């Protein structure tokens, strides 16, 4: 930690939050709000003279409220920066006549009540999001009597208790009588792995944290009686099973089953009722102290930052990586990376590993000092633009700007455009050219495919990242399927214009399949939601004009679903066989009549 504080290349802004971000990879402009500390960070020597005179006593957040601090304080002994700060809401004396005792006590005169919040703007090339976690709050549902019984602690409170620098100098005392407990119970999965309480996912670290805590206790107090109530112990990491076994050898009892109720007894100890699922019997255990192994939640700032940066979250609320295997620390937006629990619950080793990976990914992007933009971007034909604004609405990267009122046509910021082609597919006025995937280029493929025996062929539009890759994977796995489909590759399924599909039907295609990444996995944030809308709408339109809507299919196939790709190809072939030459001829006629 201190290395960060004194590193010449690191500018550390504490008490600060990002409030605005503009720009794109390589050229972000970030607005930061730095709240006033009221103590000069560079001058304060952390002598602590001010603390002695401050009359305000408040509970100490760092020790989870188990000890107290003053209104002027240092967050914790090893804090970086070490400078003290004033909590202005607690301080009596913005007005020196009221208190200002600390002002007099500070020889170096580094306390300044006039200090104010600052707005700082930084020019930034890449961003690493390491916003961490929020522990699950057991107060919400009064889990296991946490709000009612003093001797029910959270795992974080327990950490502070057994910490030599903590409120009890490392003595694991019982809050009610300040005596060393004879028995301690740990309850696992508080706020994790439950659809009703907290979250459904596994928080990944609480099992091992409890194993660790049990060892810490046993090492100092071999006679202490420890019981762990669990669903199943997940000791999957390197060296983890070893620790778990060690804790068992020390006599820690692991009881399978989560307590149903917790009651306080007259001596403030706790009676736990639990169905031991190993024996199927309800058991009662009296314990001096209970520790709740809290799960992790995404940090509170997650959603705000997600909106500001245009990132995605997974269903659990953590940041979603660009690809779970190939780009596990990259955001889908170029130039943004994830490290630590922001991306999902993980332990320290994993966090550190991911952080190093993220920094290398950032360096890889920056080391040349310039950045090349893929030329597969869209371009506006200004004369055709009717200022409708549709393209700007659908672009997942906010790469298009225009002014409807002033009739300034759309323009594409090529650095921000990632080339999904959704804008070109949605523009009703043919005002957008998608480079390397132009209307003509794509239609020419359809035409060439359907020159001979169109009735025997299936036209498949496949996105580069998922469904085309899934087809490749079917090949690598040698999954055999009927040879009737021909794939047309686009970067994103969002590129597939209604016109392309109608063109295929006009040329005699019996079946058209549009395929892309699963919803939520789109390589272009959420461009495929426009694909879905478009296809559903078009199916309705086909029905109206007398073309069987089933002949247009939409399937989501991931890069890993080679088997599914082969299955889908078989389904498509069955569907194709159901389309007669008469039906095709009729379709062609319908479409030709509509043109006239």
């Amino acid at each position: 930690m201190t290395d960060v504080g004194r590193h010449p290349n690191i500018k550390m802004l504490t008490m600060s939050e990002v409030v605005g971000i503009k720009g794109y990879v390589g050229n972000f402009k970030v607005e930061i709000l730095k709240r006033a500390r009221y103590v000069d960070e560079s001058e304060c020597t952390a002598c602590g003279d001010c603390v002695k005179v401050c009359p305000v006593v408040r509970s100490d957040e760092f020790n989870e409220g188990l000890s107290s601090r003053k209104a002027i304080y240092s967050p914790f002994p090893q804090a970086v920066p070490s400078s003290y700060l004033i909590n202005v809401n607690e301080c009596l004396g913005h007005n020196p006549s009221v208190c200002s005792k600390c002002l007099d006590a500070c020889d170096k005169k580094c306390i300044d009540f006039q200090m104010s919040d600052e707005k700082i703007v930084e020019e930034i090339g890449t961003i690493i999001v390491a916003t961490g976690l929020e522990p699950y709050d057991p107060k919400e549902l009064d889990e296991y009597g946490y709000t009612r019984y003093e001797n029910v602690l959270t795992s974080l409170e327990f950490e502070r208790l057994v910490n030599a620098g903590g409120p009890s100098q490392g003595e694991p005392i019982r809050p009610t009588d300040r005596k060393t407990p004879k028995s301690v119970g740990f309850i696992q999965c508080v706020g994790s792995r439950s659809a009703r309480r907290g979250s459904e996912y596994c928080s990944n670290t609480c099992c091992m944290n409890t194993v660790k805590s049990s060892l810490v206790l046993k090492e100092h107090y071999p006679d202490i009686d420890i019981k762990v109530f669990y669903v199943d112990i997940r000791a999957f990491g390197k060296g983890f099973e070893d620790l778990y076994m060690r804790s068992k050898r020390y006599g820690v009892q692991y009881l399978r089953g989560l307590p149903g109720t917790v009651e306080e007894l007259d001596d403030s100890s706790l009676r736990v009722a639990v169905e031991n699922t190993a024996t199927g019997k309800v058991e009662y255990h009296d314990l001096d102290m209970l520790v709740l192994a809290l799960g992790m939640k995404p940090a509170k700032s997650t959603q705000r930052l997600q909106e500001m940066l245009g990132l995605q979250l997974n269903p659990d609320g953590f940041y979603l990586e660009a690809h779970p295997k190939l780009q596990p620390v990259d955001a889908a937006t170029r130039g943004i990376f994830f490290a630590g629990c922001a991306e999902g619950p993980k332990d320290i080793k994993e966090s550190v590993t991911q952080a190093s990976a993220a920094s290398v990914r950032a360096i890889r992007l920056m080391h040349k000092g310039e950045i090349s933009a893929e030329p597969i971007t869209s371009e506006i034909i200004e004369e055709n633009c009717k200022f409708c604004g549709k393209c700007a609405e659908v672009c997942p990267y906010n790469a298009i700007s225009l002014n409807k009122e002033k009739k300034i046509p759309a323009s594409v910021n090529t650095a921000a455009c990632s080339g999904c082609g959704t804008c070109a597919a949605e523009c009703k006025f043919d005002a957008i050219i998608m480079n390397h995937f132009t209307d003509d280029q794509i239609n020419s493929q359809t035409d060439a495919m359907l020159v001979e025996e169109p009735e025997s062929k299936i036209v498949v539009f496949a996105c580069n990242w998922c469904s085309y890759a899934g087809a490749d994977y079917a090949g690598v796995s040698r999954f055999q399927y009927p040879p009737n489909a021909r794939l047309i590759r686009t970067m994103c399924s969002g590129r597939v214009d209604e016109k392309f599909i109608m063109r295929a039907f006009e040329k005699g295609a019996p079946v058209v399949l549009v395929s892309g990444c699963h919803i939520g996995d789109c390589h272009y944030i959420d461009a495929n939601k426009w694909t879905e809308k478009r296809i559903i709408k078009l199916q309705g339109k086909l029905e109206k004009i007398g073309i069987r809507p089933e002949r247009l299919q939409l399937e989501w196939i991931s890069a890993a679903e080679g088997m599914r790709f082969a299955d889908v190809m078989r389904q498509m072939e069955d569907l194709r066989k159901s389309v007669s030459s008469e039906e095709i001829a009729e379709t062609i006629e319908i479409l030709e009549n509509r043109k006239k």
Partner: protein
Amino acid sequence: MQVKSMTSADSEKQARIGVYVCHCGLNISKTVDCAKVAEVSKELEYVVEAKDIAYACSEPGQKEIVDGIIDNDLDRIVVASCSPRLHEPTFRQMLQKADLNPYMLEMANLREQCSWVHMSEPEAATRKALDLVKMSVSRAALLWPLFEETLPLTKRTMVIGGGVAGIQAALDLADNGYEVVMVEKNPSIGGTMAKLDKTFPTMDCSI
């Protein structure tokens, strides 16, 4: 901006296409009649040269293609081989060596999406391969050169969050000579980690 002036008609007029059908050893040629595909491709519009090649991506394979480009004054090519997801970067680089724009390339996927998935149907697979090449040739005729834009970049990283992950990322970057701005909402960095006593699996202290 790349192309506004260049209509597809312009590029069609000039198109001189070479088609190279790769055997990939036996990977493709065991199922697809590569020589026939090359033969038929010769008759397609804009195609100046069409050949089958043992291994297109190998050194000699690439040389054969580059020679073909130079000898026939080709301005774009179709490589009918494996998936573009595999070798598109290879052949784009090769085009640069032959003084062509790397985007004047189209690939037909005869391996992952044809020979490997229709192994017991050589004739149907060959017909499909022909279609795939035809599709690629007509698309290739409409390609135009594209140029990568180079943009300036600020060599500076913002790390949002000063917990264990943020600290590690900041130090790695800073030690590599990059400037870092670390933004932490609390008065001290350290995050959740700083509150922990011992940490598993090593059971040593966290700070």
